[in-house]
């Protein structure tokens, strides 16, 4: 599917009308990324309700609201588009980047840079795999594409969560993915500022610190939930 989209987008790019430059592509990707980063915050807020000791009532109310409110339904489409744009552009850009150095070096690059900044594609792909899994566990169940496990209703996200985290392996995989997401975000946030041209000697330091704090918060915030379920349930 991704390949399909990548090809589709490539032909789209070829179209003279919509041909955009490397910088425009990066800016669109960054904007989509900023959008996704904001969404993660909202998602985390709702997920943290899982920790409230009320048998999942408040979480379910929030989940119900998110899946029934018509405005949010529209927003959902935008969100999917955001994901798609970010992922597809990420892949296209990576492909172009590889093509720009057809013969590589014998000795791997030893430039002292932030090590993980070179692995955005890799961390992104892990997050993408997680996303696919996440979709098949929740969204596809909700819209009826995938049958839920026995005894769990298609809209009962709380029960689904309990069910998934009852597997320690799943919980560990979940946490691993969020470590990588954190790494991805840490570079992504300041990177988005740079791409948008909002790099200023006065405040870039603060942006980097804030970006790191936010990515750690997101990553830890999501990881707290499976930890809580493994340790206390």
């Amino acid at each position, binding site marked *: 599917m991704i390949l399909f989209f990548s090809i589709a987008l490539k032909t789209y790019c070829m179209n003279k009308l919509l041909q955009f*430059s*490397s*910088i*425009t*592509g*990066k*800016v669109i990707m960054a904007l989509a990324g900023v959008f996704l980063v904001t969404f993660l915050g909202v998602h985390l807020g709702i997920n943290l309700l899982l920790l409230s000791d009320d048998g999942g009532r408040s979480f379910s109310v929030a989940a119900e609201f998110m899946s029934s409110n018509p405005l949010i339904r529209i927003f959902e489409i935008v969100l999917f588009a955001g994901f798609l744009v970010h992922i597809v552009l990420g892949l296209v*850009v990576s492909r*172009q*980047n590889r*093509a*720009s*150095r*057809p*013969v*590589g*070096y*014998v*000795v*791997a*690059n*030893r*430039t*002292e*840079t*932030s090590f993980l*900044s*070179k692995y*955005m594609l890799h961390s992104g792909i892990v997050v993408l795999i997680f996303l696919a899994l996440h979709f098949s566990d929740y969204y596809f169940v909700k819209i009826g594409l995938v049958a839920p496990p026995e005894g769990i209703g298609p809209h009962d996200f709380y029960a689904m969560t309990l069910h998934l985290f009852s597997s320690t392996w799943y919980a560990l995989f979940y946490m691993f993915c969020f470590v990588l997401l954190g790494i991805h975000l840490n*570079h992504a946030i*300041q*990177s988005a*500022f*740079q*791409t*948008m*041209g*909002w*790099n*200023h*000697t006065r405040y*870039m330091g603060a942006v980097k610190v804030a970006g790191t704090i936010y990515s750690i918060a997101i990553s830890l915030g999501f990881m707290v939930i499976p930890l809580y379920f493994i340790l206390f349930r």
Partner: protein
Amino acid sequence: MNYTLKIWRQKSAKERGEMVSYQVSGISAEISFFEMLDILNQQLIAEGGDPVAFDHDCREGICGTCSLYINGRPHGPVRGVTTCQLHMRSFSDGEVIHIEPWRSKAFPVVRDLVVDRSALDLIIQAGGYVSVNSGGIPDANTIPVPKHHADTAFDAAACIGCGACVAACPNAAAMLFVSAKVSHLSLLPQGKAEAVKRVQKMVARMDELGFGNCSNTYACEVECPKLISVTNIARMNREFLSAKLFSEKEKIVRDSI
């Protein structure tokens, strides 16, 4: 001191290349890296071999001719210097030194360690100038330029066009090079008049030539022998976006009568 050199040898652009091992011995720590290569070449000529071709000219760190990817780093292990300013005291006795040409689709190998960097010229030709003729120029002091702007413009203008940024970039992007010129000229009132056009033309040319995209790893900044900052890239992105978003479509004016 003695070194083992592993050097990329390639007869011409068309032929295949490979890494070849050489030994050099009795090298003084005080000589420069190129003087060490000179010694190797004298050795090769005496043995009836083919000397190693490498680009070099001023040997004082300013012309930007020298390149070389040494042990995984453009311009070698010392920050803020070109290969010609590298001395053997930066290497330890017995070290194995790998020397490769710079790699990028836009920089094809000419021979051995020599690459063709004409692509950088083509980018400048697309708009890296202020369109003024040599007559009718107002007095140099007509337009005051805030010292801070002049200094920042200078920092960007210090680019020597060596292409280390491209060589270091995991994506072989030329963003630091292009942004240095865009910044230099857009920071000065003299360059503002055509700033909108310049940034678009230069970025378009850069894309055409097959350089990669910027993924903000900032390897370019680390390897730049003139320590040019990536804030220039942000400035270019900013200029480019505002040019694309806010500039009006250019009218074609026929000024013939």
